[in-house]
């Protein structure tokens, strides 16, 4: 059992971990999650005292970690880092045996342990033990990284974004393997990630940190259902692609753009052109005094006329389709995909023209709903 008791950590004047209290039970898989700089890695590294705490204490089975020699403490706790950190000057076998050798295990015991561990992840001893790290893929290297952490038979393993540097497919595989290993070996694992998907997949309980504070500790299901703080909610909606509830009940008003240019039927071509130039648009929607939809007009249409003498009424195209503001977004989507229409004009129930939906607008809005704000991509 690991118990944080009023743990604080400051760097100069900045408090990066604020009064942390948390108990992790034996055999539990706890994931610290939160945006970068929230104090999750610091909280992890204070357990094996790679970072010393300023206030409070951490107990491992009622023993104060500050009262144990740092090196001895670390030999008894497995540790996996994102950069993998296999020693390039040592073979795979030597890497795995770093901790057992520090613990002065006998040669026979070491030998048996390497065999056992490589077998555990399905990497034959003969093929792999005498390789060097650079002779392996990143995924294989991190498997060895995990084995190295397990080698000294520690009851606790700390993992600092262990799969962050791997490609998505390898990451999935290693996540699955780790989950299976943990079920088999009943280790207490504390795992840090900024990836909510990973946290939900791996954790028995998620500890959500923000700005040095622990905002919520809950099982993934509970956290999804009852996020204790708006920050958690927004973090999850940004990071969780499997989030249900939303997206189902979207209406046209949720997916339309209101950035449109309305002109009346009697506007002269010259005026229309200068309005378009002002708004940097090459099309407009023609309406009557009541804002009832009449037609659309494009810059091209006007130019085709040559002489700029006509009014909107004569130049407009009346074929455009309309859709009700309250219609399902799905209907708009279907119509855009099936018909040759490039856009749909959105009208309210009392007949006023209010917006427009194009393929790219609806795609963007849907993506926003599913994956959160994508402004940085677009």
């Amino acid at each position: 059992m690991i118990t944080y008791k009023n743990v604080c950590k400051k760097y100069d004047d900045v408090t990066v971990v604020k009064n942390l209290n948390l108990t992790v039970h034996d055999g539990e898989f706890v994931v610290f999650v939160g945006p970068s700089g929230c104090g999750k890695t610091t909280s992890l590294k204070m357990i094996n005292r790679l970072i010393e705490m300023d206030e409070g204490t951490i107990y491992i089975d009622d023993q104060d970690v500050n009262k144990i020699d740092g090196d001895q403490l670390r030999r008894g706790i497995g540790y996996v880092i994102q950069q993998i950190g296999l020693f390039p000057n040592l073979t795979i076998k030597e890497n795995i045996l770093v901790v057992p050798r520090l613990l002065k295990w006998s040669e026979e015991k070491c030998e048996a342990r390497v065999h056992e561990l490589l077998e555990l992840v399905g990497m034959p001893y003969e093929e792999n033990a005498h390789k060097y790290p650079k002779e392996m893929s990143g995924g294989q290297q991190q498997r060895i990284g995990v084995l190295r952490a397990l080698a000294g038979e520690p009851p606790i393993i700390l993992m600092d974004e262990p799969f962050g540097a791997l490609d998505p497919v390898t990451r999935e595989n290693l996540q699955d393997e780790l989950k299976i290993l943990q079920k088999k070996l009943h280790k207490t694992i504390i795992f840090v990630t900024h990836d909510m998907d990973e946290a939900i997949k791996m954790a028995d309980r998620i500890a959500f940190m923000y700005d040095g504070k622990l905002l919520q500790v809950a099982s993934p299901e509970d956290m999804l259902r009852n996020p204790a703080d708006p920050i958690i909610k927004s973090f999850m909606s940004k990071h969780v692609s499997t989030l249900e509830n939303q997206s189902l009940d979207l209406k046209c008003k949720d997916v339309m753009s209101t950035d449109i240019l309305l002109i009346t039927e009697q506007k002269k071509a010259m005026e229309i052109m200068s309005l378009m130039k002002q708004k940097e648009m090459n099309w407009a929607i023609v309406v009557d005094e009541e804002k009832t939809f009449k037609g659309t007009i494009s810059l091209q249409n006007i130019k085709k006329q040559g002489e700029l003498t006509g009014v909107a009424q004569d130049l407009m195209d009346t074929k455009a389709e309309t859709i009700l503001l309250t219609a399902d977004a799905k209907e708009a989507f279907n119509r855009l995909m099936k018909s040759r229409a490039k856009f749909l004009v959105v009208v309210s129930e009392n007949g006023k023209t209010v917006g427009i939906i194009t393929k790219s607008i609806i795609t963007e809005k849907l993506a926003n709903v599913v994956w959160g704000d994508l402004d940085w991509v677009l």
Partner: protein
Amino acid sequence: MGVVDFLNRYGDHLMRAIFVHLQYVFISVGAGFIIAFIAAVLLSRVPRFSKVVIPVLGIFQTVPGLVFIGVLFIYLGMKPITVIIALSIYAIFPILKNTYTGIINVDDGLIEAARGCGMSNFQILYKIEIPNAMSSIFSGVRMSTIYTVSWAVLAAMIGLGGLGEFIYRGIETNNNVLIIGGAVPAAILAMTLGYGLDLIEKKVTPRGLKGGR
């Protein structure tokens, strides 16, 4: 005068000169290495301090060897120790700088992993930092060795033998054969020692550190 004639006439003398020359090189590089290695390891513990100290040491390196041997000669007299001290001091810097850089450049991730495994500072140094700095250390030693072979020529300036004797005597008597007879063996010596060090490096470097990582 052909090579055979030259060897008939000066062969014994040349062998003696090469032997003396080699002695200077080995002793100086050896002593320089011990000092440089210890200093580099200590400096690597305090990188902030070293960022100032190492460039200052680099400035001393630019003092011409001739001047330095001359000054030492005044204080210590015409003894081999004068030459050895001077050469050792020159041998220190390349080794010091390369060893220091090699240690400092070891990936932080490795150091963190090593600490996380429960290695003590000393264990991290000799199990992780030094082995991973080895190629840099070797190139420092190679550089120092090759430099020292050429600087050892200056020993003859204060009458202490080595291949420089041929060169100086050749210059004094305007005898090109003697100059070449000293210079060519010195060059061959430098290349051979450099090659020898490469071989040793290849032998002692684990496969995991060979070739670009």
